[in-house]
C-alpha cells in the first residue's frame, strides 16, 4: 500500500515521471486498478482543495493534472479491462458566437482532474454540435460557457435543443462572466457555476442526484 500513498504525493506535486513510473510499478505488483485510480484522485482532490484555499495557483494545479493525465494513460487499459467506466462523460464548449476559451478550458481541465471523461468541443459551438456530441459520447453532463452578454441567448438555444431530445439524465451546467443563477433558472439549466473552481463540486452534486 505504501507506494500508493507515494503516488498520491507525486500527483500532488505534479511529478510526471515519478507518477507514471509508480503507476506502472503498482500495476506490475498486481494492485487493483481502481485502487491505483483512487490514489490519484485523492491527490487531485487535495490539489483542488489547496487551490480553493488559495494555497496554490492554477499553474500548480495544471501541473498536477498533467501528471495525472499521463499516469492515467498507463492505467487506463487495465482499468477498462475491469469494466471500469469514468464517473461521467461530459461535453463542454463555448456557445455559438462566442470566442472565449479560458474559463471553459479551466473547467474542462478540472473535470478531467476529477476523473470525468471530457469531450471539449471548443468555441463558437452551434447547438446541433452539442446534441450530436451528447449522443455520440453518451454524455450525462454538459458544460456551456458564454462570456458575451450577446451570446447568452445562444445558451437558451442549446438548452432548447437538448430538451427537445429524449435524453435521460443529462444535466447541464452553465457559466461565464454574465451568467447568474437566475439566468440558469430561466433557461432551465440544472446548475450554474460562478467560477471554474466551483464547477467540479457543482458537477458532482448534479451527478449525485
Amino acid at each position: 500500500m505504501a507506494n500508493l500513498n507515494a503516488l498520491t504525493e507525486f500527483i500532488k506535486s505534479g511529478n510526471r515521471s515519478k507518477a507514471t513510473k509508480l503507476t506502472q510499478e503498482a500495476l506490475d505488483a498486481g494492485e487493483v486498478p481502481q485502487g491505483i485510480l483512487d490514489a490519484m484522485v485523492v491527490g487531485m482532490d487535495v490539489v483542488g482543495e489547496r487551490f480553493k484555499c488559495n494555497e496554490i495557483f492554477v499553474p500548480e494545479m495544471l501541473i498536477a493534472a498533467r501528471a495525472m493525465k499521463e499516469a492515467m494513460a498507463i492505467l487506463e487499459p487495465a482499468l477498462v479491462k475491469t469494466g471500469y467506466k469514468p464517473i461521467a462523460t461530459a461535453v463542454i464548449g463555448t456557445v455559438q458566437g462566442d470566442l472565449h476559451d479560458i474559463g471553459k478550458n479551466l473547467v474542462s481541465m478540472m473535470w478531467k482532474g476529477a476523473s470525468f471523461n471530457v469531450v471539449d468541443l471548443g468555441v463558437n459551438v452551434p447547438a446541433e454540435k452539442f446534441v450530436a456530441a451528447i449522443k455520440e459520447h453518451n454524455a450525462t453532463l454538459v458544460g456551456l460557457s458564454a462570456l458575451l452578454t450577446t451570446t447568452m441567448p445562444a445558451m437558451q438555444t442549446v438548452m432548447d435543443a437538448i430538451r427537445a431530445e429524449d435524453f435521460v439524465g443529462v444535466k447541464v451546467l452553465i457559466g461565464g462572466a454574465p451568467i447568474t443563477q437566475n439566468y440558469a433558472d430561466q433557461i432551465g439549466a440544472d446548475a450554474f457555476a460562478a467560477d471554474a473552481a466551483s464547477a467540479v463540486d457543482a458537477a458532482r452534486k448534479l451527478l449525485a442526484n
Partner: protein
Amino acid sequence: MSTHYTSLAIDDPTKLVFGHAPNPFTLRRGMVLGGGLVYPEINFTLPPMLIEAGTMNKVCTEYRQMITGVLKRAAELESPGVLVEFETLPPMTEHPDWGMQIVNILLDAMEEAHAKDGLASALRMTPNDNREMVRPPQMRSGIYWEGMLELFDRSAAAGAELLSIESVGGKELHDDALTMGDMQGSIFGLSVLGARDMKFLWTHIVEIAKRHGVHAAGDTACGFGNTAMVLAEQKMIPRVFAAVVRAVTAVRSLVAYECGAVGPGKDCGYENPILKAITGFPMSMEGKCASCAHFSPMGNLAAACCDTWSNESIQNVKLLGGMAPTMSMEQLIYDCRLMNVALGEGPKEVLKLRDWFVASDDSLDPQAYILRPDCCVQLAQAIISKDTPYTAARHVGLTAIDILRQAHADKSLKLSDRELPWLDTMTDTIQEMPDDENVLAQQVIATTEPGRFLPAEYGLTS
C-alpha cells in the same frame, strides 16, 4: 515605413503626468488630447440580448438611448468634451452594415448634442477583432479580416476620428501560457506572434486613417495583460506573473505607434504609461470607474498619466438612479473635473495629485507597483534599449522582475510568501530562452499540437 524608437519622449518621471502629452493633437470639434485637459471617455454596450437581423431595430434603440443619455448628462455637467468609444460586438464586425447603422446613430447624436448644447465630442471606433472566430485564427485574409477592414474604412469615412482595436494575434497560444504560468509562452505570444501580427494589421489601419484624414489611435494587449490581471484578481495566477506580463505587453502595444498610430492608446491598455514615456502620445486609461467591467488593483494609480479617463464598458441596464451608462458618464466627469482642477493650478499641483493617485495603490500590488511613473520610465528605457520586440520583451520582463524584487526588499511593496518564488522561476525561464526568436519559434512550432496556430499567418515558416 515604421519608426523604431531609440529614445524616450519623456525620460523624467516627473513629466509623466495626466493631461499633458509631449505630442498632443486636436480633434475636429476642438478637443485637444494631451493638451492640458483630461476628457472622459465613455464606452457602453448592450444588455443581454441577441444581435441578428431581426433584432437590429431593438439594438439600434438601445444604442440611441445610451448615446442620448450620456451626452445629455455630459452637457448638463458641462464637460469640456467627451470621447465616445464604440467597441463592436462580433456580429457588428461580421456584418459591417449593422456596425455602420450604430456608428451613424452615435455620430448623429453627437452632432445634435454639439449643435444644441455646444458639447464637443469625438468617436473612437473599435471593431472587435473577429479573426479568432475560426480556429486556428486566420490573421491576414478571409471574411473576418475583410469585414473588419471594411468597418474601419466606412466608419472613418462616416466621421469616426480615432481608430482602435484590441487585436488578438498570438492569443491562441497566450491563453494557455497564462494558465500554465509559462513566461516563455507569454513572451512568445506577445513579442513574436503579437508583434508580427500588429505590424501587419496596423500598417493597414494607419493607411485607412490617412486616407480619411483621421487618426490611428492605438491598440491594447487587453486579451493578454487584462486576462492576466483578471486571473490574478481571481487568485488563479500569481500577481507578480501578471505584473511581468503587463510589462511585456508594452512591447507588443508599441508596434501600433511604430506603424504610425498617434494615440490615445486604448483605455484598457494599462501598459499605456510606458508607451506614453516612449512615444509622447496622449493615452487613455481606465481605473476605478471601470470596475463595472472588471476589478483592478490600481483604481487610482491608473489615472496617473491619463489623457482621457474611461469606464471600459458598461451595459445598458437600469439602476435606481437611471441607466448605467449615464451613471458611468457622471462618475467619469467628476474624476476628470478633479484632475482638471489640478491641471488648472499648474505642474506642481498636477504632480501632487498624480503622486497621491500613485501612493494610493502602489505598495499593495505588484501590478500597480510596476506602473508607477518612475517604473514606467525604467521599463520604457529597457524596451527602447533593444532592437527587436523579442529582445525588448525579454529585457523588459527581467527589468520588471528586478523592480519587483528591489521593491519587496526595501519594503515599498508587499508580496505574499507564495508569490515570491515566482520571481526566481520567471527569471530563470527568461534567461534560459534562446537569444534568437527564430530558434524559439521553431521550438514552439515543433512542440505545439498542429492546428493550434498557423505560423504562416505570422510570417513564420515551419
